């Protein structure tokens, strides 16, 4: 469903992605990991065209993302995205956050969108906070709302950009549980994360990046048991010590 083919990207003179190729099939859950600065967040932002690419091709559900003339808002409306720093809109209540895009981009009716928002809030355990403002919620609660907001567009795939990195340790699990439940329902997902326990439980495949390159792309078992590259081995030894 998502095909990244030989993608390279530069910020002025610095190359941040080097000939990256990844495929994600429908229903597949791919975890992207690697040291900071390795290009994982950049790669995931290229998938829905938030970051332009200079070389290669990205095709999502038959639509070429980086091509001139592609209706990006229409494509993005079908791909949910969750950010490291939540990015809830601070001037709107939880419900208003969730119904904005369905009303404006999908032209849904307000009461219809609100009903759907309540259902989704129920699902992420935030129904009773529907009328609160983001500033009055904990990080974990904000991130669960952000997930509900992405789901409100009935996406065909979800992109998670380090969804737990900005959270206090005691809140990480409440967010991971929501993502895990989503995975078990068959949602196609690309998750950038350092949570290797989560990767072990949920991922189908693990992609390991280093210095803008995809160093390893293997099935979960293989990645954790016998990583092929030294870089991945070193990374795992560092991260699993904790």
């Amino acid at each position: 469903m998502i095909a990244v083919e030989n993608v390279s990207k530069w910020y002025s003179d610095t190359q941040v992605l080097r000939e990256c190729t990844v495929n994600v099939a429908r229903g597949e859950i791919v975890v992207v990991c690697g040291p900071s600065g390795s290009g994982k967040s950049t790669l995931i932002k290229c998938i829905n065209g938030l970051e332009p690419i200079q070389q290669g091709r990205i095709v999502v559900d038959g639509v070429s993302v980086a091509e001139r003339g592609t209706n990006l808002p229409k494509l993005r409306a079908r791909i949910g995205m969750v950010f490291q720093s939540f990015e809830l809109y601070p001037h709107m209540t939880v419900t208003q956050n969730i119904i904005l895009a369905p009303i404006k981009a999908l032209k849904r009716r307000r009461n219809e969108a609100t009903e759907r928002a309540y259902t989704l809030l129920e699902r992420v355990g935030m129904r009773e906070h529907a009328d609160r403002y983001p500033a009055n919620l904990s990080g974990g609660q904000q991130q669960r709302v952000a997930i509900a907001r992405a789901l409100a567009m009935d996406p065909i795939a979800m992109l998670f950009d380090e969804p737990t990195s900005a959270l206090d340790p005691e809140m990480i699990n409440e967010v991971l549980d929501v993502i895990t439940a989503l995975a078990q329902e068959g949602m196609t997902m690309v998750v950038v994360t350092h949570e290797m326990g989560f990767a072990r439980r949920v991922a189908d495949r693990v992609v390991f990046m280093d210095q803008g390159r995809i160093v390893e792309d293997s099935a979960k078992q293989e990645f954790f048991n016998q990583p092929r590259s030294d870089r991945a081995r070193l990374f795992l030894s560092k991260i699993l010590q904790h």
Partner: protein
Amino acid sequence: MTNFTWSYLAGILPLLLSGMVVTVELTAASLVGGLLLGIILAVLRISRLRVVALAAATYVNLLRSLPLLLLIFWFYFLVPLLVGRPVGGMTSALIGFILFEAAYFCEIIRAGLQSVRRGQVLAGLASGLTYAQTMRRIVLPQALRNMLPVLLTEAINLFKSTALVYVVGVRDFLTAASIIGTRDNDLVPLYLLAAGVYLVVCLAASLSVGRLRRGYAL
């Protein structure tokens, strides 16, 4: 000071009021004009096209380095030379105020827009909103909220600055007070009265800005 009685005050009130109307009109027109031009300048200043951004920045820095009084003089004396007929004190003052205030408003608006995190734009775009929708629904409401206190403070400044039209003979509030004072040989009480009115208006406005600031504190 002897003839400064309630009945005297009632007698000069119409003149003072008509002066205050001119002051308020000048403030309002400069505010609207300055804001519109300021928004355009702010958008140009954050443009990715270097030449455009540089031109806007040059304008802003140039205008902010000139005394407002000089600008008013310029348009009062220079524009008639260019267009071949007098343009009048009101018009020249208004042009001066708008061009001058636009430079300040530009900086306030730019800071307001830049106070909204880039992640907010990304979140809006990622959810399927167009760039225009993202600006209108997500960035502008937050930017406006952040810059409202500063905008109002600048509006108060503008209200006081309009007294400068005295030099080009526009009959604003201060000029009206001055005219009456000269006519009745009563300058001191009238200037005191004028000061009192400016003080009350500006103080009331400042206090409400302070309240607004606290109300919106994030």
